[in-house]
């Protein structure tokens, strides 16, 4: 292997940095029309009537659609994954989003009508011409009130606002509790956040009436499922639909939501009108129209012995799914990286009059890790054990892998941690941040000088690279360059480089000579998408398998041409040569031409070309692990924090490209800092979003994101030939827990207990005020 593991500069960067990369909004077609949506201001209201006559009269308006106009073609969206299997202890009420409001608005921002016009300006003006009569209903905004028998119902055909319920049991928590020396029991609340991708969503649909062919450019993380779903919905064959997910300015999960109202409507209207239609979400819309994440109320407890060993964890929690639950039931756990013998969790998923929630980078792990790490921190304080020591005492030991958790994972199969070695990662992070030296020398000195400095260190696990499968087709072209097509989309992960490195190692070419196409169903149309930190694991290994197959074809043909046994051949610098006789060689381009002859015959049982398609599907997800450590200082006047040092030590198995990996980690940490201390979607008691602009919803900027030092350990996954594990989400996962620990450590005089996330300077001020008052 030559390239895998090296810091190779990204193949895609010249295109991105010089503005040559195609994004959805760059698509500009002749006769293209533009769409704008009328969205409800009310969170819960009965739709009495819509008058579109004035809008239709506005010059430049081509059409207006409402649920009524859609008639028979109006139907709720498909569930993203099939509802969970009906097993014991699982209840699931599937209620999927609708293309346009028919009878009742269920969240503020829900689309009521769409205007199609010659320009976006005209379309937006015409949206204001529409007169809608909405009768406001009582709003369901609070999770606990939503479940009370007195609550109004969001879906009136259900008995309550309970969307799903599930119990997970491992061992016997009640018994563990009886035997425990210490019980830490707390209510922990996690509030809403947005993914806030730099690029909002967008879609362009073009129907070619003469060839009966639909082309859709979509900011989706899952172009193939979108293609399949659209074909089914529109009554077309899959080969009549091409979905292209070009370059995306970030995905982070919400672009994996399938099907948004706009995704269902724009292609449908393009066919109706036989004209291309473009819709680009604006930033304000993004706050109303793109899914969000994470309101949860946890009543959690941890049972420990006097040595700080966890005997069991129990967690009863409520989760806010918003007005619909198209994403199905995807559950993480609150056991962290620890060897927990007894576990009981009960989730109740609740419908509210708010935007739908779906996984955002981290996908439940930031919450689950927050619970585990917070409870452990509080236990450590109670027992007088050092935070690092209590973690070491509880880590799953390396000889226990594969570690069977005896509960089910996000895909409703058994949760198993494939491999891991946690202590070296923690030790390395502690060394890199200078933990002992800081606690013994630096912190006392700085405190004496009046600085509120604190240190935090937390660990996380993440199951990554889940199935079902991905595939790739690799072709050696006549010009000697290698073309690779895979189904996953790309949102900035560096696929054009890390995947190329895998291929280059097998086929003996330069990384720059590997040309990758991702996210275009015309190029490759089997697969699922880019989510759940699975690109490098699942697509990466499919590409590897495909490259291995092409390599075999190259060697077989070259052996015939060069009249030398395959074992004596090597592929190097784009040529196949006989080892030790370098002048006896043939270029890959020439071989490709020979493999696809114009004369003669391709032997029966063989295939033309140097091409292979291969697939990879892991048995279950590979579990990555890491430790984050941070030193911060709090300004107790302004409650702003300054991060003095930030260390990440990451074990995501085999590293394909450390530079790309570090970029992913940096981005994740930045997002985590936002989730921990700046970003919160504030809703009032009527489920009105109060900060739907980037002036009020604060995402971290260069000033809030420190220099991040990244260290690596490599415990290869036994589940795939490359040994890779996912890393795309990891950076974001432990940051809220880390902030909580470091803030408590920085402000010992307040004896703070932080039991919520996200925090903010304002919120920290309030917490300190409360403490001052109560003391």
């Amino acid at each position: 292997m030559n390239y895998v593991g090296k810091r190779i500069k990204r193949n895609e960067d010249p295109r991105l940095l010089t503005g040559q990369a195609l994004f959805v909004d760059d698509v500009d077609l002749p006769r293209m029309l533009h769409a704008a949506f009328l969205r409800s201001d009310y969170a819960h209201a009965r739709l009495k009537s819509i008058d579109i006559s004035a809008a239709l009269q506005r010059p430049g308006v081509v059409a207006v659609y409402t649920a009524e106009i859609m008639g028979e073609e109006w139907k709720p969206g498909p569930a993203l994954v099939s509802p969970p299997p009906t097993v014991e202890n699982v209840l699931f009420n599937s209620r999927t989003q609708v293309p346009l409001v028919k009878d009742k608005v269920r969240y503020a921002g829900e689309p009521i009508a769409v205007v199609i016009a010659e320009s976006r300006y005209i379309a937006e003006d015409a949206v204001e011409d529409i007169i809608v009569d909405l009768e406001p209903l009582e709003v369901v905004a609070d999770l606990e009130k939503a479940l009370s028998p007195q609550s109004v119902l969001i879906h009136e055909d259900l008995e309550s606002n309970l969307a799903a319920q599930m119990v997970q049991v491992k061992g016997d928590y009640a018994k563990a509790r009886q035997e425990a020396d210490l019980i830490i029991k707390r209510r922990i609340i996690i509030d809403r956040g947005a993914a806030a991708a730099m690029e909002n969503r967008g879609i362009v649909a073009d129907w070619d009436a003469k060839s009966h062919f639909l082309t859709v450019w979509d900011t989706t993380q899952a172009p193939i499922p979108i293609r399949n779903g659209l074909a089914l919905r529109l009554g077309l064959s899959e080969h009549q639909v091409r979905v292209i997910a070009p370059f995306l300015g970030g995905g982070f999960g919400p672009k994996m939501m399938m099907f948004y109202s706009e995704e269902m409507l724009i292609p449908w209207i393009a066919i109706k009108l036989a004209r291309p239609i473009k819709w680009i979400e604006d930033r304000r819309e993004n706050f109303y129209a793109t899914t969000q994440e994470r309101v949860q109320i946890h009543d959690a407890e941890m049972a420990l012995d006097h040595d700080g060993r966890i005997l069991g964890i129990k967690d009863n929690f409520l989760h806010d799914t918003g007005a619909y639950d198209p994403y199905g039931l995807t559950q993480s756990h609150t056991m962290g990286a620890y060897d927990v013998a007894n576990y009981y969790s009960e989730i109740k998923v609740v419908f509210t009059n708010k935007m739908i929630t779906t996984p955002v980078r981290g996908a439940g792990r930031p919450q689950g890790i927050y619970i585990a790490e917070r409870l452990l921190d509080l236990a450590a304080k109670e027992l007088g054990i050092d935070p690092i020591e209590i973690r070491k005492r509880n880590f799953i030991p390396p000889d226990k892998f594969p570690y069977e958790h005896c509960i089910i994972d996000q895909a409703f199969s058994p949760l198993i941690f494939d491999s891991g070695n946690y202590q070296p990662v923690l030790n390395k992070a502690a060394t890199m941040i200078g933990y002992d030296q800081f606690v013994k020398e630096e912190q006392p000195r700085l405190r004496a000088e009046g600085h509120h400095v604190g240190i935090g260190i937390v660990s996380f696990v993440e199951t990554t690279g889940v199935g079902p499968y991905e595939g790739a087709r690799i072709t050696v072209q006549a010009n000697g360059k290698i073309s690779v097509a895979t189904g996953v989309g790309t949102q900035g992960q560096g696929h054009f480089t890390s995947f190329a490195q895998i291929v280059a190692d097998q086929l003996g070419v330069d990384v720059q000579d590997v040309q990758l196409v991702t996210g275009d169903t015309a190029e490759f149309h089997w697969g699922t998408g880019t989510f759940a930190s699975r690109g490098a694991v699942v697509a990466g290994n499919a590409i590897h398998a495909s490259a291995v197959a092409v390599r075999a074809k190259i060697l077989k043909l070259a052996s015939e041409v060069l009249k030398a046994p395959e074992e004596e051949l090597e592929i190097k610098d784009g040529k196949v040569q006989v080892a030790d006789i370098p002048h006896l060689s043939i270029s890959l381009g020439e071989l490709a031409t020979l493999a696809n002859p114009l004369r003669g015959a391709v032997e029966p049982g063989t295939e033309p070309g140097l091409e292979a398609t291969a697939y990879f599907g892991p048995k279950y997800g590979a579990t990555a692990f890491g430790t984050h450590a941070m030193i911060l200082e709090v300004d107790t006047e302004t409650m702003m924090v300054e991060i003095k040092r930030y260390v990440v030590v990451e074990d995501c198995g085999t590293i394909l490209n450390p530079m790309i990996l570090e970029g992913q980690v940096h981005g994740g940490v930045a997002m985590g800092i936002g989730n921990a201390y700046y970003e919160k979607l504030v809703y009032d008691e009527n489920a009105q979003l109060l900060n739907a602009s980037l002036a009020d919803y604060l995402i971290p900027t260069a000033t809030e994101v420190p220099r991040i030092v990244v260290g690596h350990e490599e415990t290869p996954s036994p589940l795939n030939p490359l040994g890779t594990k996912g890393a795309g989400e990891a950076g974001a996962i432990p940051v809220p827990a880390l902030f909580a620990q470091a803030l408590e450590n920085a402000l010992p005089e307040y004896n703070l207990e932080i039991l919520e996330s996200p925090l903010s300077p304002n919120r920290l001020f309030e917490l300190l005020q409360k403490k001052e008052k109560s003391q």
Partner: protein
Amino acid sequence: MKIDGEYIFKGPREEVWRIIRDPEVLATALPGTKRLDKVGENEYQGEMNVRVGPVAGLFSGRLVVSKEVPLSSLTLTVDGRGSPGFANGSGNVILNDQSDGTTLMKYEGELQIGGKLASVGQRLLDTASKSMIHTGLEALDLALQARVAAKSEGKEVEYTPPSESKFAAAVAKDMAGQMLSSRTVWIIIAIIVILAIVAAVLISRAH
């Protein structure tokens, strides 16, 4: 959102009552008001152009007056909606004589605000609403004084209502001064709408 405050009119209570129930005066005192029509015994409908920061558009409102004690107090219930969002709620207005011949208006109410008004204008809502109310009341007070002066001198009323730009400038100045206090614009708008409605009701009933 809670709204409360008071304002001293430089004139007697009867005149204040009369002026706040004169829809024409009210409409001019709150520039942007396109119309204010009586549609029932205690019910009014109006339209008003509202602009707060990045949020602008036409608001249609319905105002209901109840619990009226002539010359003294009333309750206003408002339900306004338009492209910028919606505002509904109710408030009480009380007029009291002051020993120096002036009139003290006290108002308090509760508003629910939604849509862009709430989500984008939130930060400016409080300041904007207070300022709009204050500026509107000041304009009413000027009209009142013009009326009182004309009465005492037996002349025609000389009063030029503030132009929309003057009004906007006054609000902008107030807001700039209070920006740091945060979350306000839409509250202000809502308050203004409510006050406008209240004033309209009062005026029309005075006739």
